[in-house]
């Protein structure tokens, strides 16, 4: 195995993003680092309660990625605010099963973004968890 299990895998994911692009509404913002990526996420369509909003999702990869799940949070600073959602804390922490016991090493950074996007898209009420 390589020095860092995660390096080769992240390179490959990055190559895929560069070659094939990302699904609509998901924009890679910073993917240069080997341990921290940021994506912009918007929910498309007219049905959504997050229409016109844009959120920044930060993924922090450990050496053991993808065996271990990356640490995923919405950025909460002057520029970005986390979405108002029952599973998202005001500090940007997310409560989702794929970051717990449903994590699988075959999931990728992009598939995490897609899951977050669909989590927001299926929400009908702007409520905070706490």
């Amino acid at each position, binding site marked *: 195995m390589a020095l860092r299990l995660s390096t080769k*895998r992240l390179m490959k994911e990055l190559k895929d993003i560069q070659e094939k692009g990302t699904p609509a509404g998901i924009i890679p913002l910073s993917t240069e680092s080997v341990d921290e990526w940021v994506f912009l996420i918007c929910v498309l369509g007219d049905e959504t309660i997050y229409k016109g909003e844009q959120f920044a999702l930060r993924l922090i990869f450990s050496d053991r990625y993808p*065996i271990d799940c990356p640490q995923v949070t919405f950025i909460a600073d002057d520029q970005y605010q986390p979405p108002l959602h029952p599973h998202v804390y005001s500090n940007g922490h997310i409560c989702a099963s794929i970051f717990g016991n*449903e994590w*699988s*090493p*075959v*999931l990728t950074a*992009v598939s995490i973004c*897609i899951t977050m996007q669909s989590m927001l898209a299926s929400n009908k009420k702007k409520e905070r968890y706490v």
Partner: protein
Amino acid sequence: MSSDGEDYYYEDDYDEGSMDQDSPVSEGMSEPDIVYDVMSPTADEPAPKKPYDVSYKVRTLQEIINMQSKEVRKIQTLLEMPASTATILLRHYQWNSEKLQEQFWNDPAAALLSAGLSPPVSPSTRTGPLPPSPSLLISPRRPTRSSHNPALSPVKRSRAPQPSGPFECPVCCMEFAKEDVVKETFALGCRHRFCRGCWAEYLTGKIRSEGESSRIQCMESGCERIVREEIIDELVPAGVSKRYHNLLNMAFVADAPNLRWCPHPDCEYIIECTQAPPRMLNQLVPTVECNCGRQLCFGCGYLSSHRPVLCKIVRLWERKCADDSETANWLQANTKECSKCQSTIEKNGGCNHMTCKKCKYEFCWVCMGPWSEHGTSWYQCNRFDEKSGVNARDAQAKSRASLERYLHYFNRWANHEHSAKLDAEFYKNTEKKMEQMQNSGNLSWIEVQFAKQAVETVIKARITLKWSYCMAFYLKRNNMTELFEDNQRDLERAVENLGFALEQNIEPDSIAQLRQDITNQTAYVQKRHEILMDDTLKGYLERRWDFSVDI
């Protein structure tokens, strides 16, 4: 087994690698004959000595492992399936073979599915036959998630299936040449293929950091196939595999109601007892002795004997003693609050004219009203008999009485607890005396053993006495309780006398007398101890005891 279909739970037979397939015949011959049944007592247990004693066996880890293989073989024969399948099913049903059989005969597919022996999720693998030929083992993985949730399908799945091409591990993205695929990669019956390095990393993480054992699933997202024991053993380093088997055995013991680990540090024995199921614990105190020489309670895992007190009462007592609520009780019984600044005040003497140290407020301790209203009737509150005053006084008296009662029992309990902690010193002192006797009294080693025996008797009796105060605290006042307290008092007195005799200095000319005395008293303490224990424990069976709490 020539094709999948009905018997898809044999699928893991096609996992490549050199795993042994269990053969029921050869295993059955090589195993020693150990009679084991989850629900019924083992045949070779000796009969209990007393009606309140339980019979039990101390098992080694190997015996526990044999018990599991025996259960597995039973299910294997009954349900006609490979041992590995039977093991996974049994673990899923927490070794309850009756429930497993019932559910299996009811709906075999559902039983297998819930145990993680599901057929592959992907429809493509279900339609085609699964020949065991190695050429097909290197077929690439097919996207499984895409069928229900396209959003979750990883990007790299878009690759077209190439039955015999090179393989790229979807986890670490390493490339494997066609000829290395069988050697370097691995897929379960669900055919989700990954490289062996990633498997080892994943399984090690599950076992080492998450402490998982019997429910480790395939790495693929959403795939619920359980990774079998033999496969884990093959894929992970020896140390991890050892830990994995430990976890499996721990889960087996934890799931079996008739097994309990010896709770003492560094002891690896397991106690098997079928006579003390939880529902019997309102009339039994199943104290057992492990092969490590220490006692424990089979019912609650308490680290020593807590006879003659029931497990539930012990729990209540320990909580009560540890609880801060007793501090609150004390405050309630002994203090009042300043009616102006709410500071807590303990009155430890003096008259009823109180002046709060903090806010200088002057008030009457009896009625808590301002002192100024008392006019000239100093030192004699004329509001004393007002109704509110009487009520307040009653409440305080009751609280104080209950606290005093608790402290009465607690002090005696704690006193014996403290004495028990001094055991080691008591032993040492007695040993010194025994040496002294051998030197000065010309007694042989065997002749001075009476002292050691006396110490042991005292220590044992003290432990029983200790718990008898906990018992008395929870007993309702009635004639039976008085009899109990009589027995308790007799034992207490006998123990104190013997303890006193043991503390005496040795005079060469009185050794014979002392020895006689101690031997007699030891026998007496043993007898009183026996009576208290016998009467109390039989009392549970005869339902003689009436407790102030539900048991």
